[in-house]
C-alpha cells in the first residue's frame, strides 16, 4: 500500500489524534450518552486504518507496536470478567458500585452508575485493541501472497 499525497498525510497528522480523543470521549461517557465501549472502541480503531491508508504499510508496520494492541485487548477482557465476577457474593453481574440516583449525581465527577461506566471503559479497551489488531494482521496477510519482487514504495510526492 503506497503512501498517499502530502495533503492526505498532513490531514492525518492533524486529525488522527482528535479521532482518538473523540473515541475516548464516547467510551468514557458511555453511561449517559448514546455510545459506549463497542462504538467508542471502533472509533479508536479507525486511527489505525487512517494511518495505514495515509502513510502506507511500510511506515505503519515500522512505527506501531502490536504488543500494545494485544495488551489493550487482554486488559479489557480481564477487567470486564473481573468486574462481572466481583459482584458474585450477591449475584453474577451485580452492580456493587451503583448509588441511588439524585439530582447532583448528573454533574458529579465520579458517576453513580458504578460498574456500568467501568465496564464500558473495559469493553472500549478490548474492542479498540482487537479491531486494530485484526486490521494489522489482515494487512500483513495480504502481503504474504504477493509473489513478485518487492519494490520500494513510492508516494506521489517523492
Amino acid at each position, binding site marked *: 500500500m503506497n503512501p498517499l499525497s502530502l495533503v492526505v498525510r498532513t490531514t492525518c497528522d492533524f486529525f488522527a489524534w482528535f479521532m482518538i480523543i473523540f473515541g475516548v470521549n464516547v467510551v468514557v461517557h*458511555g*453511561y*449517559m*450518552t*448514546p455510545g*459506549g465501549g*463497542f462504538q467508542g472502541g471502533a472509533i479508536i480503531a479507525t486511527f489505525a486504518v487512517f494511518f495505514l491508508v495515509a502513510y502506507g504499510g511500510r511506515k505503519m508496520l515500522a512505527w506501531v507496536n502490536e504488543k500494545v494492541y494485544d495488551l489493550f*485487548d487482554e486488559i*479489557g*477482557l480481564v477487567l*470486564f*470478567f473481573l468486574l*462481572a465476577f466481583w459482584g458474585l457474593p450477591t449475584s*453474577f*453481574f451485580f*452492580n456493587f458500585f*451503583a*448509588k*441511588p*440516583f439524585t439530582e447532583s*449525581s*448528573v454533574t458529579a465527577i465520579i*458517576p*453513580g*452508575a*458504578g*460498574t*456500568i*461506566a467501568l*465496564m*464500558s471503559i473495559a*469493553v472500549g479497551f*478490548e*474492542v479498540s485493541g*482487537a*479491531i486494530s*489488531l*485484526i486490521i494489522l*494482521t*489482515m494487512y*500483513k*496477510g495480504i502481503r*504474504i501472497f504477493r509473489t513478485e519482487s518487492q519494490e520500494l514504495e513510492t508516494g506521489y510526492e517523492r
Partner: protein
Amino acid sequence: MKKTIFVVAAILLGALIVGAVDTVHPFGAPGNAPMDDYFIANALQHRSSENIVTAIVFDYRGFDTIGEAAVLFTALCAITVLFREGRKKS
C-alpha cells in the same frame, strides 16, 4: 411438473407471509411487554445510569455482553491463525 410444484410452493409461501404480517403488532404498540415498563420505570433509580440502553447492555443483560466480547476475541484468534506466515516450501 417442476413448474407446478414451484408455483404451488410460491403461492403457499406468499399466503404464509401475508398471514404472518397480518398478525404483527402495529408499530409503537407492542403486545404484552412487562419488562419494558419495568426497565423504563426503574433503571434510572436503581442503576443511576442516564442511558437505559447501556444499563440493559452492561447490567441487566451483561451475560450477553460477555458473549459479545468473547466472540470478538475468538474472531481475533481465528484471524491471527488464518493469516499467520507459513513456512516457505524449499
